[in-house]
C-alpha cells in the first residue's frame, strides 16, 4: 500500500526496482534448496543463492541527461532498442496511486554495436501529466558483464519490474531504455489509460500473462545475505507472477491470464477476448470464462483470472484485447497487449533471473538487494536414467544408429515438461554414467562426446530446441570431462575440436554468443586450436575489435604458417591497426600460387586498393594485370583495373573491360564474400580429426563398459 510518508510524493517517487534477466534456453547450475511459495501466503520470495552470477553493478541516478530527457518528454516513440512495457495499479489512496510497471528490453538489440566487456544500461520510467509535468520517475543505471550476460541477452532480454508512487492526476507512462555506451535507445509510451486518484474512475489493466513457469534462476548480489524478503507487488494474484509485456502464446491451446479492473459491472462474468492482426483488423472474437475472482489492493478493484481457447494463426505478432462491461453499461472496459503467436509444439523454457531490491532508502547509493528462489529444489541424478543410459551405450560401438535413437528416446522421456529440475536431473545422470566410464577408460569418454554431437545435429534438424540445448550442454560437459580425466595432450586437442565443432554449428543469429563461448572453451583446453583461433578472430573482426583479432591470428599463423586464410586475415587486420609495411609483405605472400584462388583474389584487391588510394595508378595497373593473370575473370580486380584506366585517361580500354563484366560466369560467391563468411576450412579439419578418432574411441568404450559390467557383477 502507499505509505503515508512525510516525503512529498510530487517531488520524489519511492520506487522498488526489480531486475530480471530473461535467459536463453540454457540451464545454469543446480539450484540449492528453496522454499516454494504456497497459495496460503503471499508470494514472498525467500532468499537463495546458487545461480551463476552475472555481475551487475548498479548506481542510482537522479534524472537523465538532457538529450534523454528530451526524448522522454517528447511524443516520440521508437528507436532501435526493442522495448515494451505495461503498468498496473496495485494500490490506491487519497494521497495517490501506486503503479506497478514491467519493462521488457530485447536483448539482441541491446547488444548490437556493443564493443568491449561491459554493457552500461540506463532505464528511465517517467509518469508525465498532460501539462508535461512529471508526477514521478525512477531511473536506474547498471552495468552488465557482457561475457556472462550476453548469452542470455541474445534471444532473451532484460526485465525490469518496479513501482511508482504518484500523486493524483492523469498520466502517460513513458519509458526510455538506453545503451549508455552506444547511445542506442528505445522510447515508448505505455498504452491504455492509467488511473487517477480522482473518484470515480474505472479501468481494466493490460492482460497479465505470466512468464513461463518452467524456469526461475536465482541471482544474489554479494553481501546481501540475510536481507529481508520483499513481497511481490502482484502477490495479491496468489502467485509470484512476473508478467510479460509481449507474451508468447501457443495457438490452439487454452490460454490463461489475469486482468485487474475497477468499476466492473457487479458480479459480471461477461468477458470477451479479441485477437487483432498487426493492422488492427479483428481476426477472432472469443468469449472467456472467469475462473477466479480476487480482491485487488486497489479499493473496489478486482482481479479476474480468465481462460479461453486461443485460435491458432500463423506465427507472428498480434494484439490480444480483453474487454468486459463496466458499471456504466454503455461503456465497456478494455485492456490489450501485443503478443507473439507461437506454434503449439513450441517448448517453453525461458529462464528468468530475478533480483529484487528493497524500496529505495533515503541514502544515496544504498541498494540492498535480495534474491529469490524459483520453483526448483535440490536435484540429484536418477539411478533409472543412469542405468538406461549406460545400457544404451553398450550398443554404440556396434550399432551407433540404434544407440543414438535409444538415447534420444531416453532424453525425450526425461524432459516431459522441460522444467529446470528435469533438465538438471538428466544432465547429472548422464554425466554420472560418463564418470563411471571415465574411471575405467578415460579415453572412452570421447565416444560419448561424439554421440552427443551427432544427437545435437539430429535435434537441430528436427527443430527440437530443448533437446538440442541439452545436447550442447552434454557436449561441453563431456568434452571437459574427457580432457580432465584423460590428461593427454591428444585428449585436449580432441576435446577442443569437439567444442570448436559445436561452436561452428552455432554460428548463426540467435546462438552467436554460445558459439563464441564454445570456441573460447576450446581455446582453454587447446590454446593453439586453429579452428577456434580463427573463428574467434573472425568474430572479433566482425565487431570491429581488430586488435583482439590480431592477438589470435598472430599465434595461429606462427604455429601454422601454411594456413592461407589465417595469413590473409592477419594481413588485413594488421593494415587496419598499424597500416605498415608488414601488411603489404603478408599480402604479397598471399598472392602466391599455393594459396586458394579466393585468397589470391582478395590479396591482390587489397594491395591494389592501397595503391589506388595513394593514386599510384601506374603501379596499380601492373599489379592488377598480374592479379587477373593469377585469377582470370575476377570481377573485383576487373572493376579496379577499369577504374585505374579511367584515372589514367584511357577510357576506351576501361570501357572494354567493363563490357566484359557480368553474366554470372559460374561464380557462386565472390572472394570478398567468401572472406566475410565464417572460416570453414579449419573447422572441416577438426571434424575430420574427430571422425578419424571415432573407431578407437568406440573400442575404448566397449572395453570400459565390459570392465564396468564385470566389476558390477563381481560386487554383487
Amino acid at each position, binding site marked *: 500500500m502507499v505509505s503515508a510518508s512525510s516525503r512529498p510524493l510530487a517531488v520524489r517517487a519511492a520506487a522498488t526496482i526489480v531486475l530480471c534477466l530473461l535467459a536463453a534456453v540454457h540451464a545454469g547450475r543446480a539450484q540449492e534448496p528453496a522454499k516454494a511459495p504456497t497459495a496460503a501466503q503471499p508470494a514472498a520470495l525467500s532468499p537463495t543463492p546458487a545461480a551463476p552470477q552475472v555481475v551487475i553493478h548498479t548506481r542510482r541516478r537522479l534524472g537523465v541527461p538532457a538529450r534523454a530527457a528530451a526524448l522522454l518528454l517528447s511524443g516520440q516513440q521508437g528507436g532501435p532498442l526493442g522495448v515494451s512495457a505495461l503498468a498496473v495499479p496495485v494500490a490506491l489512496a487519497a494521497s495517490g496511486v501506486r503503479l506497478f510497471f514491467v519493462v521488457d528490453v530485447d536483448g539482441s538489440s541491446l547488444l548490437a554495436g556493443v564493443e568491449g566487456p561491459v554493457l552500461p544500461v540506463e532505464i528511465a520510467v517517467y509518469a508525465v501529466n498532460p501539462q508535461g509535468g512529471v508526477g514521478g520517475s525512477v531511473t536506474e543505471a547498471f552495468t552488465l558483464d557482457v561475457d556472462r550476460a550476453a548469452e542470455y541477452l541474445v534471444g532473451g532480454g532484460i526485465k525490469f519490474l518496479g513501482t511508482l508512487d504518484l500523486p493524483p492526476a492523469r498520466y502517460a507512462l513513458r519509458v526510455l531504455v538506453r545503451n549508455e555506451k552506444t547511445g542506442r535507445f528505445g522510447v515508448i509510451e505505455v498504452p491504455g489509460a492509467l488511473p487517477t486518484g480522482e473518484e470515480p474512475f474505472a479501468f481494466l489493466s493490460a492482460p497479465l500473462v505470466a512468464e513461463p513457469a518452467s524456469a526461475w534462476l536465482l541471482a544474489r548480489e554479494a553481501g546481501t545475505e540475510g536481507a529481508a524478503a520483499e513481497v511481490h507487488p502482484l502477490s495479491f494474484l496468489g502467485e509470484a507472477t512476473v508478467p510479460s509485456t509481449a507474451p508468447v502464446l501457443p495457438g490452439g491451446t487454452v490460454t490463461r491470464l489475469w486482468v485487474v479492473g475497477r468499476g466492473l459491472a457487479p458480479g459480471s462474468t461477461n468477458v470477451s477476448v479479441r485477437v487483432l492482426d498487426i493492422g488492427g483488423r479483428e481476426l477472432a472474437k472469443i468469449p472467456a470464462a472467469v475462473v477466479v475472482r480476487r480482491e485487488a489492493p486497489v479499493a473496489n478493484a478486482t482481479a479476474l483470472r480468465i481462460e479461453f481457447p486461443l485460435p491458432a494463426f500463423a506465427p507472428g505478432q498480434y494484439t490480444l484485447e480483453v474487454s468486459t462491461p463496466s458499471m456504466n453499461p454503455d461503456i465497456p472496459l478494455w485492456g490489450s497487449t501485443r503478443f507473439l503467436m507461437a506454434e503449439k509444439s513450441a517448448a517453453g523454457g525461458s529462464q528468468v533471473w530475478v533480483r529484487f531490491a528493497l524500496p529505495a532508502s533515503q541514502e544515496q547509493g544504498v541498494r540492498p538487494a535480495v534474491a529469490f528462489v524459483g520453483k526448483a529444489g535440490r536435484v540429484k541424478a536418477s539411478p533409472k536414467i543412469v542405468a538406461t543410459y549406460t545400457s544404451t551405450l553398450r550398443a554404440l560401438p556396434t550399432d551407433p544408429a540404434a544407440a543414438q535413437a535409444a538415447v534420444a528416446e531416453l532424453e525425450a522421456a526425461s524432459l516431459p515438461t522441460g522444467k529446470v529440475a528435469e533438465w538438471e536431473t538428466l544432465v547429472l545422470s548422464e554425466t554420472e554414467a560418463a564418470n563411471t566410464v571415465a574411471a575405467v577408460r578415460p579415453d572412452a569418454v570421447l565416444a560419448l562426446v561424439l554421440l552427443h554431437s551427432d544427437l545435437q545435429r539430429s535435434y537441430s534438424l528436427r527443430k527440437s530446441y530443448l533437446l538440442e540445448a541439452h545436447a550442447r550442454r552434454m557436449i561441453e560437459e563431456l568434452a571437459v570431462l574427457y580432457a580432465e580425466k584423460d590428461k593427454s595432450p591428444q585428449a585436449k586437442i580432441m576435446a577442443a575440436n569437439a567444442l570448436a565443432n559445436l561452436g561452428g554449428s552455432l554460428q548463426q543469429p540467435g546462438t552467436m554468443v554460445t558459439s563464441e563461448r564454445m570456441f573460447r572453451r576450446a581455446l582453454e583446453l587447446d590454446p593453439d586450436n586453429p579452428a577456434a583461433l580463427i573463428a574467434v578472430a*573472425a568474430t572479433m573482426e566482425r565487431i570491429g575489435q581488430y586488435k583482439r583479432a590480431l592477438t589470435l591470428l598472430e599465434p595461429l599463423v606462427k604455429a601454422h604458417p601454411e594456413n592461407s586464410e589465417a595469413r590473409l586475415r592477419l594481413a588485413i587486420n594488421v593494415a587496419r591497426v598499424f597500416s605498415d609495411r608488414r601488411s603489404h609483405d603478408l599480402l604479397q605472400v598471399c598472392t602466391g600460387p599455393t594459396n586458394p584462388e579466393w585468397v589470391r583474389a582478395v590479396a591482390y584487391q587489397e594491395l591494389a586498393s592501397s595503391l589506388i588510394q595513394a593514386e599510384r595508378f601506374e603501379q596499380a595497373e601492373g599489379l592488377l594485370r598480374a592479379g587477373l593473370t593469377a585469377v582470370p575473370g575476377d570481377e573485383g580486380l576487373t*572493376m579496379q583495373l577499369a*577504374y585505374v584506366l*579511367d584515372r589514367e585517361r584511357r577510357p576506351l580500354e576501361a570501357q572494354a573491360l567493363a563490357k566484359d563484366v557480368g553474366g*554470372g560466369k559460374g*561464380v557462386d560467391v*565472390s572472394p570478398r564474400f567468401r572472406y*566475410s563468411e565464417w572460416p570453414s576450412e579449419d573447422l572441416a579439419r577438426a571434424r575430420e580429426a574427430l571422425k578419424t578418432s571415432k573407431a578407437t574411441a568406440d573400442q575404448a568404450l566397449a572395453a570400459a563398459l565390459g570392465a564396468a559390467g564385470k566389476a558390477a557383477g563381481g560386487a554383487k
Partner: protein
Amino acid sequence: MIAPLIAALLPFLLPAGATPQVAVTITSPPAGYAAFGQVSVAVEVKAAEPVRRVVFFVDDRQVGSVSAPPFKIVASLGDENVEHRFRVVATTASGVTGEATLLTPRIAVDQEVRFDLQQLYVSARENGQRVTDLKREDFKVIDGGEDQEITAFARGDIPFAAVVLVDSSISMQGEPLTAALAGAQAFLGGMRPLDEVKLIVYCDHTITATPFTSVPEVLEASLGSVTAHGGTALADHLYLGLKLLEQRQGRRVVVLLSDGVDSHSALSVSEVLFKARQSQALIYWIRLEDPKQVVEGEEELPPLFSAWHDKVWYRETVRTLRGAVQESGGTITKVHQPSEIGPAFRGILEELREQYVLGYYPRDLRHDGSWRKVKVKVERSGVRLLAREGYLDF
C-alpha cells in the same frame, strides 16, 4: 499432311507458265535510319499458299528463323556505327521463295560537334507538384560563378539511356526482391521507343546484365530466375553502370535500388564519386530503409556486423552516396515497405518525362579536371529546382 498435297497439286492448278508469287516486305527496322544494338526485325509475307519458313540474315549471317506468324525476331547488331544489310527469305509450303533486303545507313559524321556543350536536366517542383510551364527565359544558369546564355531548351519526353541496378543480396530476400523486380518491370514497361535501358541484377557479384535495349521483353526475360543471396557490392556496380553509360548519347540515368549498405565492393564509394562526377549521369537512389535505424543528426547507423567494415565506414559510405546523388541532380526516394518500391520506380519515370533540358556553352573552360560548380535558378518564387551541381572540367 495437307500442305505437301497442295504443294504437289499446285503446278497442275495454276495456269501453265505461272509461278506462285511470294511478296516479302521488311517492316522493321524502318528504312533510312541507322540501326544499333538490339533491333526488332519484322516482315510481312503475302503468298498464295501457307508460308513454311522465314529466315533472317544480317550482314550475310543467319540470325534467326520463324515458321509461323508473326514473322519477327530480335537481332543484336552491336554498337558500331556501320551500315547493316538485312535480308529475309520466305519459303512457302511448295518451296517457292521470296525475299527482301534492306540496307540501313551509318550515321554520317560530317559536321563539327561542340564537345563543350553542357546539358543540364532540371526538375522543377512547387508545393510538391511538378511545374511544367516554365520557359527558357524563366531560367538562369550560373557556371563557374558567371551567368551563362541558354542556347538550347526543351521539356518533356526526352529519350534517355538508363542503367537500372537491382540489389538481390540476401537482405532483399522474400518480399523486397519480389517488389524490386516488379518495380523494375514497371520501369521497363514505361519505356518509350527511343529509350534504352540496361538492367544489372547484382549481389556481391553480377548475377545478370542485359545489353542496352529498347525492347522490354529482352530485359524482362532476365528477371525470371533471380533469387536473393550473397552480399552487396554496390560501389562496384554503380561504377559499372556509370562506366557503361559513357558511350550512350543524350540523357544518362542510373536508377539504383539498394539499402545503401555496401559490404563487398573492391572499389570504395568515394572512388565511384569521381566517376559519377565525370559521367554527369543523373543518379536516382531508391533507398530501402529499416525504420528502426538510429538517426543521430544526419547520419544513419545501420545495425551491422561485418568482416569488412565498421560503423564509421558505413556512415561515411551512406553520406558519400547521398552526396553523389545530390550532386548529380537526382533524388533519393526512401521506402520502408516493399509495396512502396513500385511507386518509387514510377515516380522516377514520371520525373524523367517532365524534366527540362537546358543547353549552354560554358565560358572559360580550363580543361584541367577541376570541379566547376553550376547553379540553376528560376524567376518564379516558390519553385524548387533539382539539377546537377557541377561537373569535372576535362
